[in-house]
């Protein structure tokens, strides 16, 4: 619509322009008529009078032109004329135009994709108004040995509400729970992401239910009926958007929960249900729950003022029952916290894409200079018939803008086609409510970039070439043969050097992430992932006895399958890449500080792990549940290599009988959380169903298949469903898939940076090739003369290559220096690789150097095979 309107406006402008032109012509004709009548009266012959009047008036065409320029419409006209001419020039050199447009399309396409990711991740990720007012709040207890930062307690929050006026809303909650919960509606039982909130938490986000009400303080009291809010999408899907859903019940972790409202669309859509947090009375004044506290500052209150006011009213605290110390309240920007994950990655990608854009601009610059050299005659003629330097520059810049525009169009098409696959490679997951897309913001940014590139690559050639005005005569006298005169050889060489330097930095980045990733893949996990399948399954009933019986029966059922070699269990927290901590006390006096994992007999066998000392847990250990296993790291660190036989005292809630475990074996260090995690002292123990707290009671089955048998997820699902109690089955996937997901971020980053590095590499080679090929064309006659005077092929190749080798060498050196300082931005992404890894830098430098020389050698070889007779006749 808008396009149509602007087209119409242009057309109208053109017709208006004709009116103006006619008016000017008529006005000037009147003037000349009047003057010639006067001359006629003074006695001149009619033809003589006319001629004299025109002479006195000046060139009418020139005057009319100057007239347009002032009256408006003239500029538009010039631009259109320039544009038509530019299009004609570009059509006349299809190879040049294709290379230039493709180069630009690549650069602009990649940038557009990046813009859309930046837009999605940083510009519009927040599903709530005024993000600058939102802060996360923590309470710090400074002690001589350490500073603990704790989440404020509910009492803190309620105190701040009544005794200060810094927040318009403040509440505690989590926009997504750590692990999925079982949600039952009339239709289905599912494991879903559930958020939690206190009163005023969603209000702090500025979100209010579309129907029903938010959570009240009563909803958060222990013993009150449980209340839930539905996410919009879940409401539509499970309840068909029925407003009568209010007051109905669903079950979360087998507890009846009343639906009190529905949240608007677009607010953390991955979280399908929100439940009201309920704290036991004893926990209400306990800090350090780990649940974030979010506040919305009143307009005009700064975070620093607020922190001071809050610190003044907040009572001293004592974590872990130590002496109370005065606390400090700290406020951080929520927006900053939420986007921190993206910022560093986006920054790195921006550098890489920026380098590609620069390389592309230099490439096109070189192409324009090269082609411009063959245009000297044309430019000189235009200058001689009155085009000023400004006019020539404008003409050439118009060509640049048209090239950039064509590149941008093609680039946008590329971006549109490949956006999804590129975004899939971005090494982070975008906020659910904010998919990457080509919207107005992105298109505006791309348009801006297109203009910037047009100027970047167009200005230098335009300024250089427009100098023809100074020596029109020489150029025209040479009959267009002296193309080399005003274009210094050094111009092309500087472009080569710059390109090589930029490409080297880019490739060094790609090389480093590749090397880092290969090291990551080479890490020994300590177990084999082949032929291992995991099944996430959990009984709906939140009852220890049901679970104990169910998991035991399921283990037996899987073991009975003919394709199964071994079966064990692992707690779901560990399977998801996390773990629990609870610092068991060893009889040697030390606490074991490291991940604790709950397993069942058969787990190590399923992973193909053998005991290094002692034995693995057996079925006979299950009843007493008092066997523990430690890894080599624990064994070395806490037991001087002799852990077997020692006892561990597990921390328990006050008032319960302490649980003692006997270490029966030592296993190798296992990296269950993925290769990136450093090895830590770990301990494994069996579930104690008599004291087990329910929220850690969900397990995944770990099944080793017999080698070579085919496996059916459906069959495993049926067996898990058929054992007895009602269960919810989550993902059934192979352990190698899970481990693959653990490195997917690094894999994507590596792929993406390699892809970008590859683009830059290719562009650089194309650039060197075209600059050298142009130099060969320019020197055809000179080469012909040399060959005629007896120069050998080797000699010719040497001369041409010599011109390219120096700039490549300089480019490599400058690039190495730049990479030495520049690649440190990658440090935080590298695994066991330093940002200045000499092996990578050396490899990249030699590959690039050799490829660059090869790219120059191809045209050089062509020069050497020139027939001197043809060469002398060239041009």
């Amino acid at each position, binding site marked *: 619509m808008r396009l149509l309107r602007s087209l119409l406006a242009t057309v109208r402008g053109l017709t208006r322009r004709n009116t103006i032109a006619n008016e000017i012509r008529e*006005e000037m004709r*009147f*003037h000349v008529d009047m003057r010639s009548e006067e001359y006629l009266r003074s006695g001149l012959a009619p033809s003589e009078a006319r001629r004299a009047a025109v002479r006195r008036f*000046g060139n009418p065409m020139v005057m009319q032109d*100057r*007239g347009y320029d002032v009256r408006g419409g003239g500029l538009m006209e010039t631009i259109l004329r320039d544009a038509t001419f530019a299009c004609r020039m570009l059509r006349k050199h299809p190879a040049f135009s294709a290379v230039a447009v493709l180069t630009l399309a690549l650069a602009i396409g990649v940038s557009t994709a990046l813009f859309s990711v930046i837009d999605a991740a940083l510009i519009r990720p927040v599903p709530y108004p005024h993000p600058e007012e939102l802060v996360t709040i923590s309470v710090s207890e400074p002690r001589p040995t350490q500073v603990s930062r704790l989440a404020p307690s509910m009492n803190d929050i309620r105190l701040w509400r009544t005794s200060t006026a810094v927040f318009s809303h403040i509440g505690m909650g989590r926009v997504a729970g750590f692990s999925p919960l079982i949600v039952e509606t009339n239709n289905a039982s599912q494991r879903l992401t559930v958020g939690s909130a206190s009163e005023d938490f969603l209000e702090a986000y500025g979100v209010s239910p579309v129907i029903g009400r938010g959570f009240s303080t009563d909803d958060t009291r222990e013993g009150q009926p449980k209340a839930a809010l539905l996410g919009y999408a879940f409401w539509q899907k499970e309840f068909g958007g029925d407003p009568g859903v209010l007051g109905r019940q669903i079950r979360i972790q087998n507890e009846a929960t009343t639906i009190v409202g529905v949240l608007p669309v677009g607010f953390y859509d991955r979280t399908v249900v929100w439940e009201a947090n309920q704290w036991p009375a004893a926990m209400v004044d306990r800090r350090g729950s780990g649940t974030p506290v979010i506040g919305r500052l009143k307009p005009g209150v700064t975070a620093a003022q607020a922190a001071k006011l809050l610190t003044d009213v907040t009572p001293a605290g004592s974590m872990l029952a130590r002496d109370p110390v005065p606390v400090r309240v700290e406020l951080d920007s929520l927006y900053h916290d939420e986007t921190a994950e993206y910022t560093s990655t986006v920054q790195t990608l921006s550098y890489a894409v920026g380098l590609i854009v620069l390389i592309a601009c230099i490439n096109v610059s070189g192409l324009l200079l090269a082609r411009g050299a063959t245009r000297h005659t044309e430019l000189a003629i235009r200058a001689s018939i009155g085009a000023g330097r400004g006019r020539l520059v404008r003409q050439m810049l118009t060509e640049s803008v048209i090239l950039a525009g064509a590149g941008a169009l093609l680039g946008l098409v590329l971006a549109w086609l490949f956006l999804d696959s590129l975004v899939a490679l971005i090494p982070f997951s975008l906020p659910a409510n904010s998919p990457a897309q080509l919207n107005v913001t992105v298109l505006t940014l791309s348009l801006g970039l297109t203009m910037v590139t047009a100027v970047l690559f167009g200005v230098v050639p335009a300024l250089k070439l427009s100098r023809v005005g100074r020596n029109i005569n020489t150029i025209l006298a040479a009959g267009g043969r002296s193309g080399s005169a005003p274009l210094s050889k050094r111009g092309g060489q500087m472009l080569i050097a710059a390109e090589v330097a930029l490409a080297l930095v880019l490739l060094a980045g790609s090389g480093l992430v590749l090397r880092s990733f290969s090291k990551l893949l080479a890490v020994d996990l300590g177990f084999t992932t082949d032929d291992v399948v995991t099944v996430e399954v959990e009984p709906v009933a939140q009852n220890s006895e049901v679970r104990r019986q169910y998991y035991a029966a399921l283990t037996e059922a899987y073991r009975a399958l003919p394709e199964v070699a071994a079966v064990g269990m692992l707690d779901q927290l560990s399977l998801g890449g996390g773990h629990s901590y609870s610092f068991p006390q060893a009889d040697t006096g030390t606490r074991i500080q490291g991940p604790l994992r709950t397993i069942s007999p058969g787990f190590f066998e399923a992973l193909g792990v053998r005991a290094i000392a002692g034995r693995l847990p057996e079925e006979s250990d299950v009843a007493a549940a008092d066997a523990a296993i430690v890894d080599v790291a624990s064994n070395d660190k806490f037991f001087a290599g002799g852990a077997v036989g020692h006892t561990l005292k597990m921390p328990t809630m006050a008032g319960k009988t302490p649980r003692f475990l006997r270490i029966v074996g030592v296993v190798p260090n296992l990296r269950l959380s993925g290769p990136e995690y450093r090895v830590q002292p770990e301990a494994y123990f069996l579930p104690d169903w008599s004291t087990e707290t329910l929220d850690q009671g969900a397990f995944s089955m770990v099944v080793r298949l017999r080698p070579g048998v085919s496996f059916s997820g459906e069959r495993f699902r049926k067996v898990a469903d058929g054992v007895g109690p009602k269960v919810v089955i989550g993902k059934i996937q192979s352990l190698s898939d899970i481990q693959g997901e653990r490195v997917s971020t690094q894999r994507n980053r590596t792929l993406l940076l390699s892809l970008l590095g590859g683009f830059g590499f290719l562009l650089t080679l194309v650039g060197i090739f075209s600059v050298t090929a142009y130099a060969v064309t320019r020197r055809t006659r000179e080469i012909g003369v040399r060959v005629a005077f007896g120069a050998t092929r080797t000699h010719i190749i040497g001369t041409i290559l010599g011109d390219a080798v120096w700039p490549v060498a300089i480019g490599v050196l400058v690039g190495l220096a730049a990479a030495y300082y520049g690649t440190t931005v990658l440090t935080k992404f590298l695994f066991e690789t330093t940002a200045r890894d000499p092996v990578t830098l050396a490899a990249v430098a030699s590959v690039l150097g050799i490829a660059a020389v090869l790219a120059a050698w191809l045209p050089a070889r062509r020069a050497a095979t020139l027939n001197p007779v043809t060469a002398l006749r060239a041009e």
Partner: protein
Amino acid sequence: MTRTNSDQLHGTLDMLVLKALEAGPLHGYAVAVRLEALSHDVLSVEEGSLYPALYRMERREWLSSTWSVTDTGRRARFYRLTRTGRSQLEAETASWARLTGAVASVLKA
């Protein structure tokens, strides 16, 4: 080559055109004839350059123009001073007077 000179010329030409129109609306040719009477040099080379100057001043709203019919019955475009144009003329006349006054006193001294 002539740009710097013509820039200096613009101001003088503008002032003279405004002066020529002070008495009442004129068409382009009449302005040229009037200027001839006022000064022999300004337009002696290329009369046509009067028109870009007229258009420029019209764009600045010092002048307004309409198509009308001359005494001899021909269609012509007539230019008229606007209020802005009149005050511009006064301002330029004043500053010209100051300048010439200053130059005169220097020469006298």
